[in-house]
C-alpha cells in the first residue's frame, strides 16, 4: 500500500479563517473513502484543495505524481448553464478532454467509448436531448458518464447523492464500486451513514479538524459524532493567529 494523497499539517480556508484545520494523514492508493461530517465541516473545502482549486493556507498536499488536473472532480454544485444548447452526447464526450485536448479528433473508438459510458449510466436514448430537459437524477447520471470517460486514477465526488432517488443512487454506487474494483482512488463526501456503512471501507470524519479516520466501523461511533457536532462552530472574526505547530 502506498499513499495516493498525503496531507501534511494541511490547513485550508477562506480569508485566513480555517475550514480544514491541521489535517494529517494519507489516502491509500486504490482505497474507497467516505468523507462525512456536519454541514460546514470542511468536506467541500478539502476536495477543492485536493483538486487544486484553492491553495492551502498552511501545510501541503502531496499527490504522489498525479497532476491536480488529472483528478476527476464532481463538485457539489456544478456551475452548469443548463440553458446552454448542448446535448447529452456532446456533454459526456467532454470527458475525453484529457486524451483529446483542444484539437484531438474523435474517432470510431472514442464514439464507442462515449456510447458505452452513456449506456453504463442508463441514459441510452438520451444522446440527442438538450441538457436543459434532464431531471436532476438524469443530470447526475450524465455527469457520472463524463467521469467514466475521464478515466482518472483519482476521483473526488462531492455529495453526489443529494436529492437523488434510491434507484439512481444504487446505480451510481455500483459505478463507484466498479471504480474501486479497478484500483482507482475514490473520495466521496456524503451524509447518508447507512450508505457509508454498506459501501465504503474507509471513512474520514471531519469537523474542521479531523475527528477520526480509519475503518468505517471504528470511525462511525456515537462518541465521535457527538464530538464532531461540537467542533463545528462559526468563524470568529476576532480569532487570534493560530500558533499550533506541525504534529
Amino acid at each position: 500500500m502506498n499513499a495516493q494523497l498525503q496531507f501534511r499539517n494541511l490547513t485550508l480556508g477562506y480569508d485566513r479563517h480555517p475550514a480544514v484545520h491541521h489535517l494529517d494523514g494519507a489516502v491509500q492508493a486504490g482505497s474507497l473513502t467516505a468523507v462525512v461530517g456536519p454541514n460546514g465541516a470542511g468536506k467541500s473545502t478539502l476536495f477543492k484543495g485536493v483538486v487544486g482549486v484553492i491553495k492551502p493556507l498552511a501545510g501541503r498536499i502531496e499527490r504522489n505524481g498525479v497532476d491536480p488536473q488529472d483528478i476527476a472532480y464532481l463538485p457539489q454544485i456544478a456551475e452548469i448553464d443548463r440553458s446552454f444548447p448542448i446535448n447529452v452526447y456532446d456533454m459526456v464526450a467532454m470527458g475525453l478532454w484529457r486524451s483529446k485536448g483542444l484539437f484531438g479528433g474523435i474517432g470510431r473508438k472514442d464514439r464507442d467509448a462515449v456510447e458505452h459510458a452513456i449506456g453504463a449510466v442508463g441514459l441510452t436514448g438520451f444522446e440527442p436531448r438538450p441538457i436543459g430537459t434532464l431531471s436532476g437524477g438524469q443530470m447526475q447520471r450524465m455527469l457520472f458518464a463524463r467521469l467514466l470517460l475521464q478515466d482518472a486514477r483519482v476521483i473526488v465526488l462531492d455529495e453526489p447523492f443529494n436529492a437523488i432517488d434510491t434507484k439512481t443512487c444504487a446505480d451510481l454506487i455500483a459505478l463507484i464500486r466498479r471504480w474501486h474494483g479497478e484500483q482507482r482512488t475514490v473520495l466521496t463526501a456524503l451524509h447518508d451513514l447507512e450508505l457509508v456503512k454498506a459501501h465504503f471501507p474507509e471513512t474520514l470524519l471531519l469537523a474542521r479538524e479531523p475527528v477520526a479516520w480509519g475503518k468505517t466501523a471504528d470511525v462511525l461511533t456515537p462518541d465521535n459524532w457527538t464530538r464532531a457536532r461540537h467542533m463545528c462552530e462559526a468563524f470568529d472574526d476576532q480569532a487570534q493567529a493560530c500558533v499550533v505547530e506541525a504534529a
Partner: protein
Amino acid sequence: MLYDAFIGPFVEFEFMRRALASTFALAFGAAPIGVFLMLRRMSLIGDAMAHAILPGAAAGFMLAGLNLFAMAAGGLIAGLVIAVGAGLIARSTQLKEDASLAAFFLISLALGVTLVSAKGSNVDLLHFLFGSVLAVDDPALFLVVGIASVSLLVLALIWRPLVLECVDPGFLRSVSRTGAPVHIAFLALVVMNLVGGFQALGTLLAVGIMMLPAVAARFWARDITGMIGIAVACAALSGYAGLLVSYHAGLPSGPAIILVAGLLYALSVAAGPVGGLIWLSLHRRHLEA
C-alpha cells in the same frame, strides 16, 4: 424588373458590390461571436465594447486624419485596454465586470465624441458613430475580410474550451488551464470584429450586425452549430436586403442594414419554431410520451 430590383444595383455600381462584400464578411466574422456573447449572457458587453472603441479611433483620427489603419489600430488598442482593464478591476475590487464596463464605456463615449468634435466636423462625427458602408474602399474591404478570416480561424482553434467555458466553467478549470487565455482571446475577437464593423456601420451600429442575428437565431435552432449557421445567414441577408432598401428608398445604408436585422429578429421572436410566441400560443395537445 426583378433583376433591376434585386441584382441590378450590384452589377451596375462598384460601391454597391464592395458594400455587399464587406457586409458578407462582417456576417461571417461577427455573427458567430454574437452567438457566444448571447449564450454567455454578455449581449450588452458587445455594446459597451463598441462604445469603448470610439476614443481610440478618434485618437487615430486626430493623429493621422481619416486614415483607415490609424483609426482601426487606435480602436483595437482602446478596445483591448478597456476589456482587460474592466476584467482587472472586476477581479481586484467588489465591482462586477459589467459594472466596470459600464463605467468605462460611458467615459469612452464622452471622450470619443469630444475628441472627434475637437478635430473634425459633424460629418466626421456621424461617420464615426454610424459608419458609411457605401464608402468602403479596397483597403477597408481587405481589412474587414482579413478580420473575418482571422476571426473564423481563431474561433475554430478555441472552439472546444470556449463552448466548455460557457456550459461548464468549473469542469474546464478542473481539466485544463486554458480558461483564462481563451476568455481573453474571445474578448479580443469581440473587439476585432467591432473594429471591422466600424468602417461600415460605425461604433454605434457595428454591434447590431453582431447581436441581432445571433438573438434571432436562438428561435430557429436548438444546438450551437445550427445557431451559428442561422446567425451568419441572417446577418448576410440583413446586409443584402438592407443595401437594397437603402439603394431604392434613398435611406442611409448602415441603419437600413440594422433595421432589416431588427425585422428578422422580430419575425423570429414571433414565428421562430424554437419557442417563438406564435408556437407558444398554439395550445397543441401534449404528446403521449
